[in-house]
């Protein structure tokens, strides 16, 4: 019988990252300020679209089925732009990963940013690594309760701001702010605020590195994008080993430069030892590089025992070999420019007018008393302009005896009015002699005579059962 029973599950280990200074830490602060700034301030940017239109630069208007992005307006049938953006984002992530490894995780991922913010709060209230550790191990007393409560309150407040900022993207920010201050918000808004408050609190406060290690799919497949030229954070084993404690004044002959001070381990927010090589948990945030460089400064050795470098350089023991241009680079840039130019093209050639024609199915045709055949259609004219427009409707491909357009009354096909920024629905009846073909292909052409914009949609004229 073994003395030590096998542990089937790893227990969650609390990580107390120590404070660190250095250029990557600075970069992280800058990234956090910039990203949070974008997140919190964007909904407050104004954009004048004229009367009755929302004046918010970026707005996803769910009830009215519109999305606004500065001068661009997305209607529901144009959500493929979102697909495009998602493809760009995914390929962009692959691109950056292939070049710089997991830097997205280290600097830009919301999970990292908010966790970093929460750790900062922890440090401000409870002190640095050792103080936090001691506080956790100490029995409950007034001081502990005070510090813990304060931490959680600030966490919840940050969570509240996170959820609070989210809803501004879906409503006019100043109006909604006023409503929130008066506690007069719809359930949907309150629900999102509460939900995001809670998820921020749980994810950044408690789950932290567990999210990256166990929940995030990207962590699992990012290594597929790595190659020998990818910059990863790594420990220079040739230079560092054999490691050991170092006494001041002694030489560096016959030993490595790593003095086994564990600085790189205690600052790591993922709680790993980078000296064990590339690990799935490593989010490439560079804090261990900062910590190690600070130590190297103290003992008078050059920087870079732990550094961003390529596998190639480490394997061959040569100076950094980073190459930006590799076949991969061109592939990713190629895909991104293809998708990007497709989106740009469709955006630039986007018409402010759209026509959709739907042929009646029941009945598919009607025989009139003089023997002529009549077909019915429902047409929708989408006016994306911010002014009322008048359109002219023509039918190509058939000699019609009569084009009748009916809304609440009969209208002239030469003058169909559709109000600004809305969809006009019209019934169209085409009357023609019985055709030689049972099903004749015809075309509905609509013209905006003022701006000379033409759009068309094809349909059929049916004159007998097939």
């Amino acid at each position, binding site marked *: 019988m073994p003395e030590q029973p096998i542990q089937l599950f790893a227990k969650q280990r609390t990580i107390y990252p120590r404070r660190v200074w250095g250029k990557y830490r600075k970069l992280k602060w800058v990234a956090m300020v910039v990203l949070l700034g974008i997140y919190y301030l964007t909904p407050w940017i104004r954009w004048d679209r004229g009367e009755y239109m929302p004046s918010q630069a970026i707005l996803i208007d769910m009830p009215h089925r519109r999305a606004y992005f500065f001068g661009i307006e997305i209607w529901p049938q144009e959500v493929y732009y979102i697909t495009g953006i998602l493809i760009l984002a995914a390929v962009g992530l692959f691109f950056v990963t292939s070049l710089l490894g997991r830097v997205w995780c280290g600097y830009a991922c919301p999970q990292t940013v908010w966790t970093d913010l929460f750790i900062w709060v922890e440090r401000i209230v409870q002190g640095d690594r050792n103080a936090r550790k001691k506080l956790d191990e100490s029995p409950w007393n007034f001081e502990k309760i005070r510090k813990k409560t304060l931490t959680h309150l600030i966490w919840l407040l940050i969570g509240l701001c996170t959820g609070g900022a989210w809803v501004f993207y879906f409503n006019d920010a100043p109006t909604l702010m006023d409503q929130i201050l008066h506690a007069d918000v719809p359930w949907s808004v309150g629900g999102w605020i509460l939900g995001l408050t809670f998820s921020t609190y749980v994810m950044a406060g408690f789950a932290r590195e567990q999210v990256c290690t166990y929940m995030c799919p990207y962590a699992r497949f990012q290594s597929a994008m790595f190659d020998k030229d990818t910059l990863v954070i790594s420990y220079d084993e040739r230079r560092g080993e054999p490691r050991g404690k170092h006494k001041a004044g002694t030489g560096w002959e016959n030993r490595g430069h790593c003095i086994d001070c564990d600085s790189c381990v205690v600052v790591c927010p993922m709680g790993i030892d980078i000296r064990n090589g590339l690990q799935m948990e490593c989010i490439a945030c560079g804090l261990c590089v900062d910590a190690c460089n600070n130590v190297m400064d103290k003992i008078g050795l050059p920087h870079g025992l732990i550094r961003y470098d390529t596998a190639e350089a480490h394997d061959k023991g040569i100076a950094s070999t980073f190459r930006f241009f590799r076949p991969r680079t061109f592939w990713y840039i190629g895909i991104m420019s293809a998708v990007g130019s497709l989106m740009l093209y469709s955006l630039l050639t986007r018409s402010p007018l759209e026509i959709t024609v739907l042929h009646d199915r029941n009945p598919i045709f009607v*025989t009139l008393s003089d023997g002529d055949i009549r077909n019915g259609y429902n047409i929708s004219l989408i006016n994306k302009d911010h002014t009322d427009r008048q359109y002219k409707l023509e039918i190509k491909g058939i000699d019609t005896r009569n084009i009748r357009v009916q*809304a609440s009354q009969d209208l002239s096909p030469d*003058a169909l009015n559709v*109000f600004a*920024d809305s969809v006009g629905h019209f*019934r169209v009846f085409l009357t023609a002699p019985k055709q030689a073909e049972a099903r004749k292909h015809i075309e509905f052409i609509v013209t905006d005579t003022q701006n000379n914009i033409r759009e068309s949609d094809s349909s059929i004229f049916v004159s007998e059962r097939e």
Partner: protein
Amino acid sequence: MADPNTPKEKDTVTGVETTGHEWDGLKELNNPAPRWWLWVFFLCCIWAVGYWLVYPAWPTLNGNTQGSKHWTQYKKLADEQSEITARRGVYIEKIKTASLQDIQSDPELYAFAIAGGKTMFKENCAACHGTGAEGRPGYPNLNDDDWLWGGDLDAIYTTIKHGIRSTHAETRDSAMPAFGKDGILKAAEISSVADYVLSLSTHQGGTEEGATLFATNCASCHGNDGKGGRDFGAPNLADAIWLYGGDKASIVRQVNSPRHGVMPTWEARLPDTTIKQLAIYVHSLGGGEAAPAIMPAAAPTQPSAKEPAGR
């Protein structure tokens, strides 16, 4: 069955007690349930108690506990339905007092009437006239431009309200004599008149004899030119539309022993507002005629079909 007196067996690998259950040599470890799971379970228990208090829950001898909110799905449904009725009521009130022409010229009211008419048509009329009002032999197609009793808004409204050959006192009524069955015409004469009737629309065939027979027997209702008459609901025999079939055999059968369609009166079954909506809907199907008196001289000015951005 494990004997409670014998000590529990310990698993050699993990050092955890087993439950004593064994399946094909596999033994279940007696690990405690995960703590998070237990907490969720306890929270659910507490939640359940709150639920019992707030919502209807436990059966009692006379019904069930009501819950503090007295909330039921029936009540929720009733509330929602009354909200719909209230919202609809605004339009229904307007339709009550408005004339059919008023409804037609008010785009918002018109859209409401069409939507309601379409639904009520499927519920009440589609059984005979078809879901698209396309009709079938014996049941008129309401999409076309051929109307037995008139196709303007008021005529359609009257037909729906009073019915055709219905039980209503003011019903529209007419009957064609059974020329063959009652011995008014001989078989040969019926064949001859049928040929003439066919020739009215095909412009070929037909004899002098047929024309004479038609003039003496049929023209009083169907007109000298066979174009029918709406006073009696007499069908137009010179057009391309046939209610009971347009081949010679069908015509002979109709002259010999005519069939007459019956449309029930809807006055007692549907509220007047619904009949108005139905009339508007049927009129909109494409065959609706303008009222004879107020024929607009030119194309009317634009009441646009607007979908407000706020919908």
